[in-house]
C-alpha cells in the first residue's frame, strides 16, 4: 500500500526534533468548526503541522439531563432521551424502554417487537448514512453528502409519518410503540431496502475505493484492540479494531436472537486493522446487515396489538439495574436506581461518544492536523450524547 504514514519520520527521531525545535503553537479547533461535528472544542498544541497534544473540551451542550430526570415521571423522560443522540434517537428510546420493562416485567407484544427492530435498524442506516456523508465532506468530497441525505430523507419521511417528528420521535414507549405501522409504509420500506442495497454498493465504489479517500484514511488514526479495551470503546470503533463484539449477538435483546445477521469486523483491507478506513468500512457493511435484518422483519411481522399492559402511573420497584444496548454509535447503558417512587432516584446514562472523546488525545499524538480531522470524523461523535 501507500507509504503514507501518520507520523513524520523526522518527528519520530528525537535528535532531529531537537535541532528543528520551535515553540509549540496552541490552536483551538472548535467549538464552531465544521469538522468537529457539533460543539466540540479541541485545544491542539502543534509543532508545525504535527499535533503534539490534543485536549478535548466538552460541555458546551450540557443540559444536565440526568438531573432533569430526577424530577420527571418515567414516561416524561422518553423525550429527553431523544435529545441525547439526535441522529440515533430510536436507539436511545429503545434502551430506556428496555430498562424499565426489565424492572417492571412487562411483556411486549410481538408486533411491537418487530416494529422496534424495524425502526432501530432504519435508524442505524440513517445514522450511518449521515456518517458517510459528513465524513466525505471532512475529507473534501462534497457530492456523497447529497446522495446520503437523499436516502436518509426517505427514512426520515417514514419516521415522520410514524411518529409525527423527523428527528426526536418519542415513538418507542414503555411496553410497546406509540403508533401502528401501516401496510403501505411496510411496502415503502421494502422498496427502500431494495434500492438501498444497490445504491450502497455504488456509494462504496464512489468513496471507499477512491484513491484519495484511501490515501487519507488508510493507516491513519490506528486504534489497537488493547487501546480500545483500555479506553472502553465500543460499537463500530471496537469492531473496526478487529474485535468480534456486538451486543445484538453477545447479550441479545428484543428479537435479535431469532434474526440472522453477521457481525462486521475490521480486517485491514486497505491498511492496518483499526485505521480510519476500517471504521468507515465497518459502518458501510453494517448497513447491508441492517437491510438484511429489516427484510426478515418485513417477512415476520404479523397483525396484533402494539402496546402491552402497563400501569397508568408507573412506579418502578426498589432496586437498581444496568442495561446496555447497541446503538449506531456504540453501547448505550442506562443505570437506574429506584426507591420505589414515581420518579427515578438516579438515572445515569453511559454514552459511548463520551468514552470515545476520551480516546482522542491518545490517538492524536504525532498526527498531522489533517489526519486528526479524519480521526475525529471516523469516530463519529454526536455532541448531544457526549454532554447530555
Amino acid at each position, binding site marked *: 500500500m501507500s507509504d503514507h504514514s501518520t507520523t513524520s519520520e523526522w518527528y519520530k527521531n528525537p535528535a532531529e526534533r531537537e535541532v528543528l525545535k520551535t515553540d509549540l503553537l496552541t490552536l483551538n479547533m472548535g467549538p464552531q468548526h465544521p469538522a468537529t461535528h457539533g460543539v466540540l472544542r479541541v485545544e491542539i498544541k502543534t509543532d508545525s503541522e504535527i499535533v503534539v497534544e490534543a485536549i478535548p473540551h466538552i460541555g458546551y451542550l450540557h443540559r444536565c439531563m440526568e438531573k432533569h430526570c430526577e424530577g420527571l415521571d418515567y414516561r416524561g423522560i422518553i423525550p429527553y432521551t431523544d435529545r441525547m443522540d439526535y441522529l440515533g434517537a430510536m436507539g436511545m428510546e429503545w434502551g430506556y424502554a428496555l430498562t424499565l420493562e426489565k*424492572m417492571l416485567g412487562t411483556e411486549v407484544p410481538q408486533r411491537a417487537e418487530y416494529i422496534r427492530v424495524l425502526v432501530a435498524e432504519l435508524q442505524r442506516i440513517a445514522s450511518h448514512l449521515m456518517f458517510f456523508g459528513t465524513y466525505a465532506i471532512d475529507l473534501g468530497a462534497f457530492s456523497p453528502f447529497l446522495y446520503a441525505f437523499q436516502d436518509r430523507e426517505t427514512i426520515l419521511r417514514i419516521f415522520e409519518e410514524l411518529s409525527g417528528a423527523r428527528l426526536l420521535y418519542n415513538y418507542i414507549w414503555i411496553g410497546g410503540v406509540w403508533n401502528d405501522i401501516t401496510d403501505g409504509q411496510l411496502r415503502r420500506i421494502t422498496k427502500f431496502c431494495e434500492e438501498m442495497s444497490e445504491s450502497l454498493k455504488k456509494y462504496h465504489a464512489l468513496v471507499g475505493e477512491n484513491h484519495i479517500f484511501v490515501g487519507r484514511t488508510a493507516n491513519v488514526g490506528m486504534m489497537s484492540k488493547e487501546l480500545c*479495551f483500555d479506553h*472502553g470503546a465500543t460499537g463500530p470503533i471496537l469492531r473496526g479494531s478487529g474485535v468480534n463484539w456486538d451486543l445484538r449477538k453477545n447479550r441479545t435483546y428484543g428479537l435479535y436472537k431469532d434474526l440472522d445477521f453477521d457481525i462486521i469486523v475490521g480486517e485491514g483491507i486497505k491498511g492496518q486493522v483499526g485505521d480510519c478506513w476500517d471504521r468507515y468500512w465497518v459502518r458501510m457493511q453494517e448497513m447491508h446487515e441492517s437491510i438484511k435484518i429489516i427484510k426478515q422483519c418485513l417477512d415476520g411481522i404479523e397483525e396484533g396489538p402494539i402496546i402491552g399492559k402497563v400501569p397508568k402511573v408507573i412506579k418502578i420497584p426498589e*432496586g437498581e439495574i444496568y442495561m446496555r444496548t447497541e446503538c449506531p454509535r456504540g453501547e448505550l447503558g442506562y*443505570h437506574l*436506581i429506584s426507591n420505589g417512587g414515581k420518579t427515578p432516584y438516579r438515572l445515569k446514562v453511559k454514552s459511548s461518544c463520551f468514552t470515545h472523546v476520551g480516546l482522542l488525545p*491518545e490517538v492524536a499524538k504525532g498526527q498531522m492536523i489533517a489526519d486528526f480531522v479524519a480521526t475525529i470524523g471516523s469516530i463519529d461523535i454526536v455532541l448531544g450524547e457526549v454532554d447530555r
Partner: protein
Amino acid sequence: MHNELAQLINSNVSGSNAEHVARENGDDVLFISSEHILRVCTFLKSAQGYEFNVLQVVTGCDYTDRIEVSYILASFINNLELILKTKLLKENKDHTPELESVCSVWEAANYQERECFDMLGVCFKNHPDPRRILCPDDWEGYPLRKDYVPAEKYNGMVINPEHKINREEIFFGEKLKREAVDPKKISYSWKKPEYFPDGVPESTESE
C-alpha cells in the same frame, strides 16, 4: 456469580469486606470498603475466570448522609457485567469525600472520574487531570447532589432571566385543558408546585 466473586475478593484482597447484596428487582450489587478500591479493581482486571477488561461507568448516587460510588465493570472476554459499589460518608453539605483513582487500571476511568467529581463532588486521589469536565471550571457546587440549589448568577450573569422564560410553553397544558373536548384526559403531570416556590402563578395568556 456474585457470591463466589465476593469470596474470591475477600481471600485475595485482605480487608476489602466484599459483600454481596441481592436485590429482588434488577441487578445484584457487590459492596466493598472504599479504602481498597484500587487493589480490588487491579485484582478484578486479571482475576482468573472473570477478567473485567472494560470499565463502563464510574458514577455516584447521593443519599443525604453518604455518597455511593458505583463502578460498572464488564468483561468482553467472558461476557460478564458487575456493579461494584462503595460507600463514602458525607459529613456536611460541602464535604468532598476522597477515593483512590483507578486510572492506572483502566484509562477509561480518567473521563468517568472527572464526570463523577464534576457532578457529585467525589475527589479522586492521584487522578492525572482532576478538573471539571461538563461544567465550567469555576462552577460552584455539585449539580447531582440532592441538596444542590441551582445557581442564580454565574460570573455576574443572571441564569434564566425572567424575560427569557417562555410562559406560553409552561401554560401549554392549561390551554390544552381549556380547549379539549374531555379535559379529564389531559394530565400534564410535569407541572408540580415545587417548581414554583412563590405559588403557582396565574396564566399570563390573554383570554
